[in-house]
Each structure stands twice: as C-alpha cells, then as structure tokens.
C-alpha cells in the first residue's frame, strides 16, 4: 500500500492500522514524491490525500492515470473535502474509493481488502458508481 498525505498523523494512522491487517505500507509526504514512489514500487493500492501543497491529490491521480506503469493501480481518496462536487471529480479521475476525514482507521484495512477483492471480481466500475452515491461511507 502507498499512503500519500502531507499530514504525518494520517500517515502514521494508516501505517499502523494497515500493518495490523497484514499489509506492507510505504509513505509519501507530498504529491511529487508520491508519484515517483508509485512508479517505482507499483503498490497494490494508493491511499491519496487531496489537499496537499504544491502537487495536490487531484494532480497525483491524473499523473498516475496517464502513466502506463501506474494506470491500473486502484486509488482510494482520503480527504477532508466532503462536497459532492469533489466526489464527482474523484470518480472522474479514476478513484475507486472516497473516504472523508475523519475516518475510522480501524476499518481501513477492511475497506482496502474489499476494494481489492471487488476489483478482482471485475467490479471496478461498480465501485466508482458507489463513490458518486456516497455508498462507501
């Protein structure tokens, strides 16, 4: 798993709780290094903050979608932005999950597992539709 967030606390929460679900976690504290890490490490999934200085989460998602190496990596947004417009943008940019802060970090391992399982079953589009309706919250 790759967690891209400028907040140290959020990265820490994700790392500890995903590790508890048996997942390996790598971290990036800004958008630019997040893109590089994704290209290099090809994680199974990216947890992506939106409001980050310089290169924000939307830009990161666009960059990942453009690049052949990272195109298929599922992106789950993890953000303080709760507007419906933001959710729609998340879907447009290829997101398969949209978690609004504050979120329950204990459940995050389960969320990631479910997303991966459904993608395995070929339900990527269904996941994206769920974001628009806010179903995963």
């Amino acid at each position, binding site marked *: 798993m790759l967690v891209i967030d400028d*907040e140290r606390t959020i990265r820490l929460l994700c790392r500890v709780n995903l590790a*508890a679900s048996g997942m390996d976690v790598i971290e990036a504290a800004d958008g630019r290094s997040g893109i590089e890490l994704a290209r290099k490490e090809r994680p199974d999934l990216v947890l992506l903050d939106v409001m980050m200085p310089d290169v924000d989460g939307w830009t990161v998602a666009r960059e990942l979608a453009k690049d052949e190496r990272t195109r298929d990596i599922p992106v789950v947004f993890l953000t303080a932005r709760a507007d419906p417009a933001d959710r729609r943008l998340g879907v447009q940019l290829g997101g398969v999950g949209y978690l609004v*802060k*504050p979120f329950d970090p204990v459940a995050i391992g389960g969320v990631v597992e479910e997303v991966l399982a459904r993608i395995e079953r070929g339900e990527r589009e269904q996941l994206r539709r769920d974001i628009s309706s806010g179903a995963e919250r």
Partner: protein
Amino acid sequence: MSPVEGIEAADRARRLQRVAERLAEAVTPEEVLDAVLSEGVRAAEARAGAIGVLSADGKSVELLAQQGYDPAVMTGWASFPLDADLPMSQVVRTGAALFIPSLRERNELFPALAHQGQEGHAVVVVPLAVAGRVFGAMSLSFDDDIDFGLERREMKMTLARQAAQALARSRLLEAEQALRKRMTFLAEASDLLASSLDYNRTLRQLARLSVPGLADWCAIDILGPNGEIERLAVAHQDPEKVRWARELQERYPPDPKAPHGVAQVLRSGEPEFFSQIPPEVLDESIGDDQELRRIVDELGLRASICVPLKARGRILGALTLIAAETHPLYTQADFELATELAHRAAVAVDNARLFREAERGANAALALAYVADGVVLLDREGRVRHWNGAAAAITGVDEEDALGRPVREVVSGWDTLAALVPLVPPGSAPRPVTLPLAHAGRERWVAVTGVGFGQGTVYALQDVTEEHALEKTRSDFVATASHELRTPLAAVYGAVRTLRRGDVELSEDDRTLFLEMIESEATRLATIIDQILLTGQLDAGAVEIDATECDPAEIAASVIDSAAMHVPEDISLALDPDGSPRIVCDENKLRQVLVNLVDNAIKYSPGGGRVEIRLRRETSHCLIEVVDDGLGIPMDERNRIFEKFYRLDPQQTKGVGGSGLGLYICRELVERMNGQLTVASQPGRGSTFTVELPLRR
C-alpha cells in the same frame, strides 16, 4: 269740449298724473305692479285689474299680480297658454287692445269664459309693450256695461303705456341686478377655484358658496376612476340638513343607472334642467319606495339644474342645484349661470389634476434618476423605453446608447439573464433572482426582478456584486474552516480508535506517539477554533481594543521567554530593545501578535537559525521587527500571506499545522491599534515582519 267733458278730461289727466307719480317712485317689479294695480285700477275707475306677462319660453302668459278679483276665482289662472282663446292671450298675441262693453259680448267673443266669472260687466285688455314689442297685457274689469269712447280708450292706452314702461324698466333693473349678482358670484367662485390646487376642498367651498343664493341644495359629484359616483359635497344653509342628507346618501347610494339626475348627466354628458320638476320625474326616481317618497315629499324639491363638469371632452363630475323650500323656480338665466359655473369648476379640476400629474411625473423622473437601483423599461418588442442612471452604472451602457434599441443588442448577456428572471404580474411581490450580468468584458452580480404589464416589462436591477463577493468569501470561509477542522479531528479520532483496538499489540513507542498526537492535534483544534472565532469577531467589528500606555520591550521579552520553552534546539532567540520607547496599544493583543510572528519565524526556519525581536524608535512610531533567517517568502506571495486561509507552500512545516488565519489576525489586530504590519523577505535568506505602532503622545 263741453264743460263736463273738460272736467272729466282734467280729472283723467290728474289721475294719470298720480299714477305716473306712483310709478316714478316704484323701483322693483313688485312696487310697479302694486302701483299700477292700486292707482291704475282706481284711475281707470275699474273694479279689478290684473297684469300678465309672456313667460320666459314665450309659450304662455303668467299672471304676475291682480287686484280686486276674488282670489278663489283667480287660482286657476296663474298661467295659461299663449294660444288659448282668452282675452289676455289674444291681446299678447296680436298687440291689439280689447274693449268689451258687456259680459254678453265677452261670452260671445270668448266662449271658453261663458260659464265662469259671470258677475262682471265691461272688460278692457290692453297690451303692455315697449319699443313695439308686446311682453304682456293688463286687464281691467268694470262694474257696469260701458261703451268706451275715444277719450276713455285713449286714457286706458296711456295707462297701459305708463305701466309697460315702468314695468319694463323695473324688470330690466331687476335683470341687471340679477346679472350683476351672478357676475359677482361667478367672480367669487372663480377666485375660489383658482385659490388652491386641492380641488376637493375648493369644490366643497364652492358648494357652500352656492347656498342659499343659487340654490337651497347644492351637490357636487365626482366620477371615480372606475365610473363610480362619489358625492364630494352637499351644501345647505342648515348644517343639520347637510348631516341628514349625508345619512340619506349612505342609505340610498347613487345608482349609476338611475334615469334622472346626476347618474344620467354623468352618463350622457348632457345637462338636465327642470325649471319645475314634473311629478313623473320624481315618480320615476322614487319607484315604489314609500320611505323614499316620504323623504322626497319632505324635501319639497321644486326645480333642479344638473350640469356636467366637463373638460377637454372628459366628464369629471356634475354640479346639482336644487330649489326646494325657499329658492324661486329656476329660469334660463339660472341654468346658464350653472352651466358657466360648472365649466369653470371643471377647468379648475382639470388644471389641478394636470398639474398634479405633471408634478407626479416630474417627481417620478427625479426618483428614477437618483434611485440606487437600475430601472429598465422595455416595450412589448423588447426595446428600451427607460434606462435610468443606476441601470447605466450597473451595465456600463449610457442611456443614450440604450434608448429605443432592442435590449439584447444593448447588453450582450441580457437574454441569458431574462431567461432566468420570472416575470410577475403587477401588484404581486417578485422574488429577486441573483445572477451575473456580463457585458463588454465586465461582470456584475445583480439581483433582478421583472414585472410584466400590458405595455411591456419593467426590470429592477440591484448591484449586489460586493454582497455576492462577501457571501462567496463567507461560504468559502465556512468550507475552508470545516476542512481545516477535519484533519486534526481525523488524527484525534483515528488515534483513539487505534489505541483502543484490541486485536493489535502496539509498541510502547507507537502508543506514546499516538498519545502525543492526540494532545497536539487537540491543541491544534482548539487554536483553529479560537482563530476562527476571532476572525469572525474581527469581520463583525466586535473585537474591542483596550489601548493603554505600555512598554514594548517588556512585552517582547515575555514573548521571547515563553517561546524559549518550546523552541527547537537549533534555533536561537534574541531581543534587541534599543531605548525602548513607550507606546499606546492593547498589551494583550500586541503579545498575541508577537507570539504568532515568533511562532511563524520558528516554523519557517526548519533548518534552524536565529529569531530576533528588534525594537526601533522612529519620530512618531515604534517599530517592532520579528526577524528570521529562514525560508523567506516568494515575491509574488508577500501580500497574499495576510489573506484568510492562505498558506505558503511549506513542505517543511509538516506536523506543525496552522489554521491559515494567523497572519490575517495579526494584521487586523495591528491595524485596529492604529498600526501597520508589513513584511520584507528574501527567499532563502529569511523574512522580517514589522509591527509599526504609534508612540505615546
């Protein structure tokens, strides 16, 4: 001439002389009639006499006075047709005198009289004429049958000439006096009508002026905008009767379809004149209402004139004059006077209305010219008919460039706007629609209402660009504030959830980390909330400044001391007091500002360095500089850092977290203390924030 004849002739001459003397003294027609009948009858040695004149319409003979006849016999003879086969009618018709020696001959000549007044004998009827025009006749009845000789005939003719002249003279005088009275009245009425533009008041005064000289009752009715009849004034000499008439009016409101009177005159625009009201007219007006009949009988209405108030072809109302208990029956002259009076009143009302309309128009134009809202009037084709000053200011299009042109050509964004503004009918309350109006490269936000009416539409445009920007700022503020709160809240909530997780054994280091996280993020939450509240207070102007004289060096020292408690090891703090002038400010607010600036300086010096507060004394100000040698601020962001929620792009500040409100609050506080907060910076070499506050005077 025999001696007897001579004596008789002298006697006749003396009698005629006496009549002439009496007539010379008589002034009014009544006096003349009295003189003619008392002296004339005696002079003619007659038993009785009567004088009749041609009526105003020339169709009948009216008996003016009589003497010596039995009143009971005379009651039926007050007036009789000119073409009747009667002695007086014939004389007035022909101008030739009648000398009838006996009753038998009278009855032969006038069979209509054969069965009445049989007690008389000879009868003489002589014409009353002036300048060859017969206007009446005098009849004399005698106790004997008389064969009138030439002298006696001549004497009667002379008597008639004297009477005619005196009567004509007195009638002329009376007519002249009546005319003068009318002219005086008209002049008085005209003065009254010209005295004020409040025509309701002047018409009421006019009605009062008209009684009792012109009528027993005077009423003025005005035609309302919807054809209703409004009784403006009722006048009678007796105020008690006026009150009674008003009550009556309420019980019997005017019927616009009534066959006679005001309603009829207002409908037709033609006057209605009854020199004597025929009973059938009253009957028609009363109908079957017994109560009304009782009232009308009590009123004793005898003659009426109702004339329309007409100006420029429009019927404005009606003037009604009624002769009842005292006023004589109306004549043609009265009718003419009433017509003239109504004409003048109508012109006055019309003028007053025109003036009022013109004034209203002028006032409306003034109001439209200076009202702050844009007012746009379009005709049915969408062409601009009115474009006031505010509309010009809002759209940026001058009136002369807009008038007469289709509005969609005048303002490019108009169709888009109009499509979103619902048109409401007149009288309903439209809700303004707020939307952008784009024209010629500029955009204003306008609150628009539209009212559609028969001849077109009128739009009111209020420029709400500033309010809209303010509203946007406010909603942005709420959105941003909630985002700012979500992140620390996520950390606190997440840390607690993780710590309480039963299925994972956390290392001691991680536990410590999470507890520290809870503490620092909760503090951050509190700070953000404080700053949001303070910002709200600053925006509302609700922050009070308690300005006192204080020592900035002392404040700066305490700020440095408390910063030293948590400053990273690689940062050194310093204070350069330099003479320490005394200043006037709110000590707590200044401390708050300096704490914030020092915290910022430390935050933006991630590689360590020196943070110093320097005090500088100027002529009238004290400069407090907070200097660091940290990251510095890029040129183009130097002004933006004072905006709400603006944050530099400080990757190195991870974990420190700010609300984005600190510098905004600092600048606002300093400015409220009559000071200034400025920044100088060189990227990569540090920044200097300068607080400039006035010295003590």
